[in-house]
């Protein structure tokens, strides 16, 4: 019986240990102060590590006796969120300053992980340099600010000009409707059956990428939405939802996108950025404004020709209705841990990490859209890559995810619906009906509305 017991033990051992640790208050050494910084670092994402290394030097030089302890977590976005949440549960492991996904801010505020920053921000002269819209990313349900944005992003269609030219599609390409996309994709397929004309993620393999870089571009372009902010309810039974699934089904059924097997592989994005687009084997895909960070010098998939070969277009609305395009935005913030014992030092470090110099370096190296107005107007930022202007303009038509505590489960239900459709397991109508049922089960009938 030991083995199954171990699973239970592993699952709740974690919680048990953390809970017991939470009860034991540790006396704090006063003589030498240390602040702990937790953030994400992967082989293909080192831009933030660089920022923190620089900020540490700057901060330690200016604050004698304080040690900045950098603790990068090597993990993908999902696992980073989990590891961070586990670390938050005990004062011994909770960070003083940490990197936080915008869509987790509200639910982590509810969990008591983030320190309210209103008073510190009030006396920080650089806060006025932050874009007003971007400031909202760090706002909790109570209206207070809990996190400071580092940068944001948008999503667009990235296309390979040579593939489109071969299919006789005039450049620059800007589809006006969903049908324009299908027509162009069919042309590409006819011109060269070996290319993948138009890739859109689907299924649980690509996780949040499936909804951010595919499904929501469709859904929000139908006039429907996932959540009604005014009613504070989740939307079910919308025609837009079924239409969006139908569009994906058409793409996959006509083999205009990758194979379903490839779509469900969590590493498919590496092939998109690293092989198919650079080798001219893919016509277009929907991806983030950060795409050039993979191709520019020092990126994971260096590609000198990307600036000439790639083009960027706005994702159209279903029938070309206003505002003519759709984009999704996310982005990351820095927050101060609610359990910190040196709140002032932690906030001071945070401001060092997001000062103009560091924010500029981060935005350029990670192809982020600037949230500081002084960075946005900096010539270095504007010259970072040839697409900065195009993707920054998409902020005008962008949407944000409903960052409620229920959101991750809803997102999974959407991913599941797309997976069932592209794998041929359910029709769009069946998958939509199952999504509606899951949402009702997840959030309760009172938090759901028919639209």
């Amino acid at each position: 019986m030991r083995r199954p017991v171990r699973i239970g033990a592993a699952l709740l051992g974690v919680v048990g240990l953390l809970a017991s640790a939470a009860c034991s208050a540790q006396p704090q050494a006063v003589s030498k102060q240390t602040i702990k910084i937790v953030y994400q670092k992967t082989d293909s994402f080192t831009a933030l590590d660089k920022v923190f290394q620089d900020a540490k030097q700057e901060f330690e030089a200016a604050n004698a006796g304080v040690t900045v302890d950098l603790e990068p977590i090597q993990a993908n976005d999902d696992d980073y969120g989990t590891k961070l949440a586990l670390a938050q549960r005990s004062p011994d492991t909770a960070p003083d300053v940490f990197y936080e996904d915008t869509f987790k801010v509200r639910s982590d505020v509810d969990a008591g992980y983030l320190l309210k920053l209103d008073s510190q921000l009030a006396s920080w002269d650089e806060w006025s340099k932050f874009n007003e819209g971007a400031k909202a990313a760090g706002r909790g349900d109570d209206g207070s600010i809990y996190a400071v944005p580092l940068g944001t992003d948008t999503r667009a269609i990235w296309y390979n000009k040579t593939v489109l030219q071969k299919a006789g599609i005039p450049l620059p390409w800007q589809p006006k409707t969903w049908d324009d996309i299908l027509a162009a994709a069919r042309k590409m397929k006819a011109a060269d059956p070996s290319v993948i004309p138009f890739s859109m993620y689907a299924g649980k393999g690509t996780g949040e990428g499936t909804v951010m870089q595919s499904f929501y571009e469709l859904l929000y372009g139908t006039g429907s939405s996932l959540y009604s902010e005014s009613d504070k309810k989740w939307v079910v039974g919308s025609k837009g939802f079924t239409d969006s699934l139908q569009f994906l089904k058409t793409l996959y059924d006509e083999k205009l996108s990758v194979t379903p097997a490839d779509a469900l592989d969590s590493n498919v994005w590496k092939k998109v950025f690293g092989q198919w687009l650079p080798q001219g084997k893919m016509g277009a895909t929907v991806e983030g404004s950060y795409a050039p960070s993979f191709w520019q010098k020092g990126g994971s998939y260096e590609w000198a020709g990307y600036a000439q070969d790639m083009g960027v277009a706005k994702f159209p609305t279903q029938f070309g209705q206003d505002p003519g395009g759709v984009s999704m935005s996310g982005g990351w913030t820095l927050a101060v841990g609610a359990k910190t014992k040196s709140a002032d030092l932690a906030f001071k470090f945070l401001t060092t990490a997001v000062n103009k110099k560091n924010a500029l370096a981060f935005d350029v190296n990670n192809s982020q859209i600037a949230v500081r107005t002084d960075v946005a107007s900096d010539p270095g930022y504007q010259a970072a890559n040839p697409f900065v202007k195009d993707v920054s303009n998409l902020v005008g038509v962008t949407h944000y995810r409903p960052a409620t505590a229920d959101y991750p489960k809803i997102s999974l239900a959407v991913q599941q619906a797309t997976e069932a459709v592209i794998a041929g397991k359910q029709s769009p109508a069946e998958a939509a009906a199952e999504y509606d049922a899951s949402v009702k089960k997840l959030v309760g009938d009172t938090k759901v509305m028919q639209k």
Partner: protein
Amino acid sequence: MLAPVAWSFYASFTNAALSGKAALNPQWVGLDNYARMLTDSVFPLSAWLTVVFVAVSAILGQNALGLVIALLMTRSGGATASLVGTVVVASWILPEIVAAFAAYAYFSQDGTLNQLLGMFGVQGTNWLYAFPMAAIILANVWRGTAFSMLVYRAALSQVPRDVSEAALMDGARGWQRLAFITLPIIRGSIATNLMLITLQTLAVFTLIWVMTAGGPSNASTTLPVLAYQEAFKLGDIGYGTAIASVLILIGVVFGAVYVRLIRGAKP
């Protein structure tokens, strides 16, 4: 040893979570998490897949194959036996994560299996997508057979030679000696072996997570994978631990059956 299990069991009656209000103040929700399983679209499938996985890969696969190899080794003896033994044990001593990546590399689209098939002009499919459970079951058999083989090697060496020789004199054929003499004698070892490999297979997580992550469309989501997804991917510790509790229960049921078998073996 019991404290974490008790904790896990306790948490399965709460709405403990990784984030949100429930992370700050978990509430007692009684049997809600268990009731939710009944209406969960994935849970019944997941429980079924777990039972299939254990029955086919452990009870049938590892157990039977281990016994056959052990019998053949006993008969052939010497260099062949030790060579076969080494090959089989090699996959067993690999760390689970390494074995999992090896299995992934073997079954994936551009993997070893399809390259081998290609040499014979056969176009392979994407096994992990088209037949995820079959691939995982084969991988678990490959990885775990050595254990059963070792248990049976030891058990067979304890079978008194004179008994089978006497049977041979009485004209018993090979399969008759196996069915009426060898197997009854090693019955206790069979039950012990079944118990150990069943419990071990119930807990297999890394192998599945690396090979298919439970997909496609939950087609290979066993209970440990589901518990992990709910507890850590979705942050729902309460529901995740409830699933883990059910897993423990399944282990207890299997265990009770085997204990009866062992008792029956030693009158």
